[in-house]
Structures are given as structure tokens and as C-alpha cells.
């Protein structure tokens, strides 16, 4: 599976992604799906600065990600697809039948969100969106770093893994 991980992480490219996952999975490319970043050279340069020279970064809008997903998936090198929020990933899952596994990597505290895990906070709408994705056959689990326990969505939403 060339795209090893489809991750929701509001920090987008950062240490856990580049080092924590990047090294053990030997990632060679990242697909960052974000309409705002895809439209901003400055934002792209900022994120590119943190990526090692042997890792390629593709900055794409949601529409471009849908259009190019098959090509990304056909890349023989291992890669990761990243979105900064649940809604963006939900739109991708709705449009890409092959995208059937999602990693919750980091959705942090903000007004209106309730804590579900140390690194997952959700609004009611976000929770409903995740339930809808799961009902449509997407396997969703939380895991911030590879050495951490994989926590199924139902356990996350029940707050049962909140330490």
C-alpha cells in the first residue's frame, strides 16, 4: 500500500509526522491536502522547511487530491496523506472509494470541543462526521505515534481511553 497512512492532524507537517512516522515507515512523500496551504507559496515554503531533503511534499487542494489520488496511490514509494481537519478527510473519503482507513493523529483543544483522548478533542459535529464516515465503511482509529496503542473510534468517542 503506497500511501501507508491517511492522517488527520491539525499541526499538519511536524515532528510526529516527519520523524515519528516518517522514519519507521521510511516515508518518501507527503500529500498535504489543504485548500489554504495549496493557495499560498509562503505556507508551502514554511512546511517544506521542516521536511528532509529525501522526502517529497505535494501541496494539493481537496479537488486536486481527489483527481490525483490514484497516481499518489500508485507511487511505489511509501507516502502519507495528511489533512488538518476531519471535514477535509470526510470529503476525501466520500469521493475516493479506495480510501477506507483513517488515522486520528491530533485534533487539539479549541472552544466547543470536548476531550476524548489526550490528543483528540471533538465538537458534536465532528463526532457526527466521524460516525458517518465509519457507517460508510471507513475504518477509523486514533494513534499519535507508531509506538502508541491503536484506539478504535468507538473507544475514542466513548471517552474510555481518556487517561
Amino acid at each position: 500500500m503506497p500511501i501507508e497512512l491517511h492522517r488527520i492532524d491539525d499541526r499538519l507537517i511536524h515532528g510526529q509526522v516527519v520523524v515519528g512516522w516518517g522514519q519507521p515507515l521510511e516515508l518518501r512523500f507527503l500529500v498535504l491536502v489543504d485548500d489554504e496551504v495549496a493557495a499560498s507559496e509562503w505556507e508551502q515554503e514554511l512546511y517544506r522547511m521542516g521536511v528532509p531533503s529525501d522526502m517529497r511534499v505535494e501541496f494539493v487542494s481537496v479537488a486536486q487530491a481527489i483527481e490525483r489520488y490514484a497516481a499518489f496511490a500508485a507511487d511505489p514509494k511509501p507516502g502519507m496523506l495528511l489533512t488538518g481537519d476531519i471535514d477535509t478527510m470526510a470529503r476525501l473519503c466520500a469521493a475516493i472509494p479506495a480510501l477506507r482507513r483513517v488515522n486520528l493523529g491530533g485534533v487539539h483543544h479549541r472552544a466547543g470541543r470536548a476531550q476524548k483522548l489526550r490528543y483528540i478533542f471533538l465538537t458534536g459535529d465532528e463526532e457526527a462526521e466521524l460516525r458517518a464516515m465509519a457507517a460508510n465503511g471507513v475504518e477509523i482509529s486514533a494513534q499519535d505515534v507508531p509506538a502508541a496503542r491503536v484506539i478504535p473510534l468507538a473507544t475514542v468517542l466513548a471517552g474510555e481511553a481518556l487517561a
Partner: protein
Amino acid sequence: MSDQDLRSAALVIGHKDFAAGIVSAVTAITGRTDLFRTASNYGLDTRATEAMLREAIADGVRVIFSDLPAGSTTMAARRAQRDHPDITVVTGISLPVLLDYAFAAPDAADAADAAVEKGRAAMMVTRGSARAD
């Protein structure tokens, strides 16, 4: 600017307890507790980390030391720097970097650059060899 003014204008930010840990090492070596402010991104998204750094800048911070070039700490610092071009951001720091900065002349404009050079030069690999006797 007094020595204390320059030092309190520097902030170290890192993952989890990195900043508190490395600044405690600076304190152990220098005996000074007034050199660096500390901050952590723990539990924060990039936006919240950036807001924290903007508050620190409004409160007088002029140099930000961060731990990891790819980290959200550095991303947040760079975003804050965009609106504050007088802010210096140093990333990939180590103890030699902070110690050199701590001992730099209080008014040295290139203190951050010199500290980075010191940090690079401090890195080495040594390998043992069998004793001849």
C-alpha cells in the same frame, strides 16, 4: 540594554518538557535563573502555540529558540515572525547553543548566529580504540 534585559528577551520552546529541561541544565552550569523564559507546545495545536508566542513577543521576547526544525514549535515561531520581522528564530538547538548565547556580550547583535556556529562545532563522534598496554 542591560544584561538582564537581553536575556529575558529570549524564550526557549520545545516539545513536552524539553525547554524546562534544557534551561535547567543552563541554570546548573551558569548558576543563572534569569537567562531564558520557557514554553511547551504540549497539548496545543499550531494556532494555540502561535498565540502563546505572539503574547510572549508582545511581552518583550525578541529571540525564540526552538527544538526541532520540522516541529510545530518552529512552524508557530515562523508564523509569528512573519508579522514581527525583528524577531530572530533559532531552531535545532542544543545545550552548547544556549550556553554560548548566555555568555555572549549583552549587546551582541550576532549572538544567535555565533551560538549556532558554536553548536555546530560542538557536535562530534568519537570511537574507542584498543589500549596498547
